[in-house]
């Protein structure tokens, strides 16, 4: 179900050892990546992790201090944005306030010298594609946030980019609209067969939309892979904590549980509550813990517990279970197969 991982075909975007420094700040610090044609690629990370700078390096708003960038095999270092076959959907949408919606969408066509009748037709089609037909004459100020976002999308798509860049495209929308747009963006990307590169700090957004996710931290990519891999098998402590708040099992605890010594991640939903007197199932270790905090989250209850050895863990148990209260002693079952080894730390 994933788009093909980058293979022999010319990658849509390729970074080799790319660095971009702002004074002493290493915003992007030696990034290698390869984005396949037709791939929906997410750059995920906290603010200041270098993901937005990477997007701006592809767009041409920034130039690398070191390294090499190619778009469909063509070197683009030194090329200004207006000479690159990519287009951007800006975080603040960046619609021209003095132009109508139709003129905004037709802007890139006008720059390219497309005749008026033709560009009006193409702009109408692009607006219909994002379900905004008939709003050509409005001003951006007269639109809702969600509509502005669609206009920005239409404006970028109408000039037929080879790669579409999206900078936190859904950040300013409310939850319901964001979920709708996630579905729509994804089906649009499938229909157009374009490479989408999108930047987000929301792991849910990255996991649900992308074919592959690159997790950024401190100017570097710390893990790249399909959403399932990044979620299920975080490469290190940072990814485990940032993508879905997994537990980190330290080597001594791993040994105590009966696994080989090493650093592991453990997803909260893999931990089960054991009824009193019931032995742990095969392949699972039982541990005693006391409940520190319980928070109800609809489908699951999140339990913050402390083991008798003093280790803090988070467990997500089905909300249908009888809820333990803070201070209760509980027995937990940890399936050893759910312990995912992570990179050793130096």
């Amino acid at each position, binding site marked *: 179900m994933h788009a093909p991982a980058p293979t022999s075909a010319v990658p849509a975007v390729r970074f080799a050892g790319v660095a971009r420094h702002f004074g002493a700040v290493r915003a992007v610090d030696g990034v290698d990546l390869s984005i396949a044609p037709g791939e929906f690629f997410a750059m995920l990370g906290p603010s200041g992790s270098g993901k937005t700078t990477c997007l701006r390096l592809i767009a041409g*708003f920034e130039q690398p201090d070191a390294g090499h960038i190619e778009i469909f095999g063509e070197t683009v270092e030194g090329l200004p944005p207006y000479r690159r076959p990519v287009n951007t959907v800006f975080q603040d949408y960046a619609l*021209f306030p003095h132009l109508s919606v139709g003129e905004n969408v037709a802007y890139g066509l006008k720059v390219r010298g497309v005749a008026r009748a033709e560009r009006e037709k193409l702009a109408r089609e692009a607006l219909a594609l994002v379900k905004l037909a008939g709003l050509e004459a409005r001003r951006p100020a007269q639109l809702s946030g969600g509509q502005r976002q669609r206009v920005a999308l239409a404006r970028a798509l109408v000039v037929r980019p080879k790669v579409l860049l999206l900078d936190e495209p859904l950040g300013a929308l409310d939850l319901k609209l964001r979920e709708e747009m996630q579905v729509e963006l994804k089906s649009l990307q499938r229909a157009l067969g374009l490479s989408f590169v999108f930047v987000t700090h929301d792991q849910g957004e990255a996991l649900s939309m992308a074919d592959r996710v690159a997790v950024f931290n401190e100017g570097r990519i710390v893990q790249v892979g399909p959403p399932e891999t990044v979620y299920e098998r975080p490469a290190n402590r940072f990814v485990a904590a940032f993508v879905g708040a997994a537990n980190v099992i330290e080597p001594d605890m791993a040994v105590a549980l009966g696994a080989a010594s090493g650093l592991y991640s453990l997803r909260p939903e893999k931990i089960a509550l054991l009824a009193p007197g019931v032995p742990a199932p095969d392949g699972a270790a039982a541990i005693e813990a006391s409940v520190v905090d319980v928070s109800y989250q609809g489908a699951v209850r999140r339990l913050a517990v402390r083991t008798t050895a003093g280790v803090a863990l988070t467990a997500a148990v089905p909300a249908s279970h009888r809820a333990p209260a803070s201070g209760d002693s509980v027995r937990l079952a940890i399936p050893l197969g759910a312990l995912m080894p992570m990179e050793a730390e130096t």
Partner: protein
Amino acid sequence: MSLATFDLPSPREGALRRFSDLLLRRGHLIVLLLLAPPLIWLGLVYLGSLFVFLGQSIFSIDEFSGTIVREPTTATLLELFRPANFDILMRTVGIATAVTLLCAVIAFPIAYYAARYAGPRAKAAFYLAVMMPLWSSYLVKVYGWKLLLAKEGAISWFAGRLGLDGALDAWLSLPLVGGPSLSVSYTGMVLTFTYLWLPFMILPVQAALERVPASLIEAAGDLGAGPGYTFRSVILPLAMPGVVAGAVFTFSLTLGDYIVPQIIGTSALVLGQAVYTLQGTAGNIPLAAAFSLVPILVMALFLTLAKRTGAFDAM
């Protein structure tokens, strides 16, 4: 110490506190209290006296006795169209237009640098540099320019050293803009006005440019527009409200000034001088009022045209 036992004494009740309560409950009361003094000043003292003065333009003056005839007539207003008076109007509007255009052309790059490229320190220096001329005496600056522009002045000396005295003489021999020397020509007058009013153009243009989000300029580039096209299609239209605001200052300040043309320039009168002479020595208040109407009408026309051409669309 637990939070429950932590108790602050309540503030004491007093007349001032009850008055604050009243103001908070009745929001319009505080607005009224705050606005009444400035509204009385602006409405009655300032606009009121202006309209009373302008109202004089429907009266006329008795040619023999020199007294004001308080009967409504259009004769005074029509006098503006007499060739001698109409020349004054056209001359003044022409000078003001030239000053405004020159100010806009000089101010834009400066304002653009300050708004988009200057760091915090450079920006502080920029504000200081733009504002400082406004702190010094107007007359000192005008007389300074008279010396700069004089036949033996710094400008002609520089022109001579650069071997450009021929060009200067050629310019001065042109009709209309030329004259015996820069200090007694329209060119000199326009240069002096431009120097005087430039800050009034730079500051609003800079403010307008600062409100243009950087992402709009990036978006234009992203969509394929080179720097020139981006400037014409995005930056200039969005800065237009600032240019118009600056133009209102430079235009109206030039229309009303009567000192610069006295010190620098030709013997031909401009509007400000005409009003000055008419209401002073000549005692012709009605005609002075009629002349004073002109800048207001010109500015109204200018703003209407600016609105028509979409200068305020981005506001």
